[in-house]
């Protein structure tokens, strides 16, 4: 329970700090929402009037306080650009990004763990050599490029899906199918990284005394690997995967653009460009929440894998 309380506190603190930093960052860059909304029609009087209406003429801390008060009462404010309630704007997009991230994550876990084990098992062989080279290649190719390639191959040539026509989550099956191609683009470089990491942790684990003992007692190599070594080797990998989970959201910004997926990524980029603070703040908080949540999940999972890790936190 104490652990949960600690985590919750971290969560709130992180969100507070991140949201304040985002708020402050805006006051450092040039251009404000009123100027952008008025565009080429901006005159000093119009800008001043609009700033006043939006409350932008108040000091930074007052604005932040007001935002915070709204946040804790469940009011995220109204988007400056779209003049629509923020949650109405980003709610559906959060769902899309969540599904995209989950799909990518699932792909990463399902592909990289077995592949990592196999690579470690046959380390040094021809297959491993070929795979290492391929792995390097996968890590080097950026997601947006893979995305374009996938859209072209599966969309234009094979007609497995229609690039640019995301069906929306209401048609869930079609939506997941569409998202899967984007998820592959996001997953490929991260699968490569995870495989490499798992391979090397397994290999260094294999050098340890308990492995030698187990093998000398007559257990076969593969059995030892799966039953004993994998468990120990997974701990750093789980931590790494938690980081990946956070990164996926960042990675999805570019991939969403390529596939024309209406997720948070595009919304965030555009809102920053428009200086649409209420929307940016809301997205930043969601992302911070996401990152802290992944970290917590990793801690909990590691605790299950390696009971020694539990001693410090849980009572």
């Amino acid at each position, binding site marked *: 329970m104490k652990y949960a309380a600690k985590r919750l506190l971290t969560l709130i603190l992180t969100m507070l700090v991140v949201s304040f930093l985002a708020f402050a960052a805006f006051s450092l860059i040039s251009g404000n929402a009123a100027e952008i909304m008025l565009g080429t029609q901006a005159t000093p009087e119009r800008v001043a009037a609009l700033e006043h209406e939006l409350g932008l003429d108040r000091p930074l801390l007052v604005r932040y306080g007001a935002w915070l008060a709204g946040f804790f009462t469940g009011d995220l404010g109204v988007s400056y650009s779209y003049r629509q309630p923020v949650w109405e704007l980003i709610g559906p997009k959060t769902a899309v990004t969540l599904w995209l991230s989950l799909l990518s994550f699932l792909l990463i876990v399902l592909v990289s763990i077995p592949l990592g084990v196999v690579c470690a098992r046959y380390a040094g062989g021809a297959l491993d050599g070929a795979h290492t080279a391929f792995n390097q290649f996968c890590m080097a190719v950026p997601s947006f490029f893979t995305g374009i390639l996938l859209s072209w191959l599966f969309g234009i040539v094979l007609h497995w899906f*229609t690039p640019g026509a995301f069906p929306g989550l209401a048609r869930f099956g079609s939506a997941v199918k569409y998202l899967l191609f984007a998820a592959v683009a996001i997953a490929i470089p991260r699968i490569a990284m995870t495989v490499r990491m798992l391979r090397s942790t397994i290999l260094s684990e294999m050098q340890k005394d308990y492995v030698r003992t187990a093998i000398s007692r007559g257990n076969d190599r593969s059995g030892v690997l799966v039953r004993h070594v994998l468990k120990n080797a997974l701990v750093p990998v789980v931590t790494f995967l938690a980081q990946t989970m956070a990164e996926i959201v960042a990675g999805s910004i570019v991939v969403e653009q*390529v596939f024309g997926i209406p997720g948070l990524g595009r919304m965030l980029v555009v809102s920053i460009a428009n200086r649409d603070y209420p929307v940016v703040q809301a997205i930043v908080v969601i992302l911070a929440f996401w990152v802290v949540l992944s970290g917590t999940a990793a801690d909990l999972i590691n605790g299950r894998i390696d009971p020694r890790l539990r001693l410090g936190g849980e009572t």
Partner: protein
Amino acid sequence: MKKRILALVLLVCVLSAALTGCGGGSKEDSPENRKTANELNVGIAQDLDDSLDPHKAVAAGTKEVMFNVFEGLVKPTPEGDLVPAIAETYTISDDHLTYTFHLRQGVKFHNGDTVTAEDVKYSIQRCADATETGVLQVAAFSAVTKLETPDESTVVITLAEPANEFLSYLTCAVLPADYDRQDTAPVGTGPFRFVSRTAQDSIVLERFDDYWGTPAQLSKVTFKIIENADTIMMSLQSGAVDLFAHLTITQAEQLGEGFTVAEGTMNLVQAMYLNNGEKPFDDVRVRQALCYAVDKQGVIDQAFDGYGSPIGSSMYPAFAKYFDPSLTDYYSHDTARAKALLAEAGYPDGFSMTITVPSNYQPHIDTAQVIAQQLKDIGVTAELQLVEWGTWLSDVYAGRQFQSTVIGVDASNMTARALLERFTSTASNDFINYENAEYDALFAQAQASYDDAVQTAIYKQMERNLTENAANVYIQDMADLVAVRKGLEGVRFYPIYVLDLSALRYAG
């Protein structure tokens, strides 16, 4: 461990079921199905991240789409004329001071209400006062002294002094008087009605069946927002969209079989705008030197593959009435002359300058790069500075803190005033700090004359003034390339920046 494996297996099963089971749904969004349903998907590169209220919307991209939803007393035609819309007829008194509009009977708003003289009065008053925050004042309405509605279907507007172009401003959208959700759920009288907007995703319009005029051909149009250049091409080829305006030359050339490319003009004055208030561009000789040094046709050939119409002043060819073709070649490409002028101005070895360009407009970046290359020939080192659109608006446009910038300036309505007023020394949007007494006097004269021929002649003189004083280095009106899926027809180009959907239809 076993449980976990079981869970994983289950998950994979569910996923694959989802993938295979729901693949070929009957409502697949394909070009064939859209044709059967008489629907159309249009790609646009810019979201309508703006108020949808036509009296507040600023972005050209927003106005371009909402042109289909709103109308004024009069509306523009592709030929550049004004025809009655909500008004059926109008008369102008002999002293050019009183305009009487007789409204068309039974014109309906999209919410079902009938347009009354009160609605017209409200709409004009709203733009004249601009007391409501966000509403952009229409300066021409300041001349209105009286706005009367003698009966349900008559509106009488009285002006303080004659204004020849007044009618052009009455394209100003007519909105229902007692409706306060225009920002997000706009209601107008146009051939299409607004259905929905999903930020960064799509805008949906449907045919308005109670439209007073020729109804639109298509029953539904979905605008899809696609910013990424590669995705644009992919969406056209995959069948996700049927029409895409403002393509680059490279994109248009990649389209292949299934499309035709309609070519119009962007209706923008693309130029390297110079800050006339800053050194070294406060010296007319330096500005002229730049005009001689830049080869517009070279820019068009190199950056636009030859598509585009060169211009020589703040007017584009689509405004045929006001366009003076003789100004286009006023400064023929002449490096020797440019160098001589620079030497005379005290820069025999040239100088260094910055060209600030908004990073989201690739055509302007390309143009700036070619210009920078050309300026090297006269010893001028131009450095490109790419800035975010927000920064550009704030620093360059509003703050006037810049040396030079490449941008396209559009006209908000079909008057020469819309393009030329900004260079009068008192204009709040005179971002290049152009100050010329003769120019100001000409503008005042143009406003005072209600004889169309006289006024046009004065406007042409103003254009000449801008050219002779080399206010800016004018380049071109860019070509507007529209990709249209084969089997679709009815693309119409206007002398202003709009995308008219009402005549689009599937052939046969």
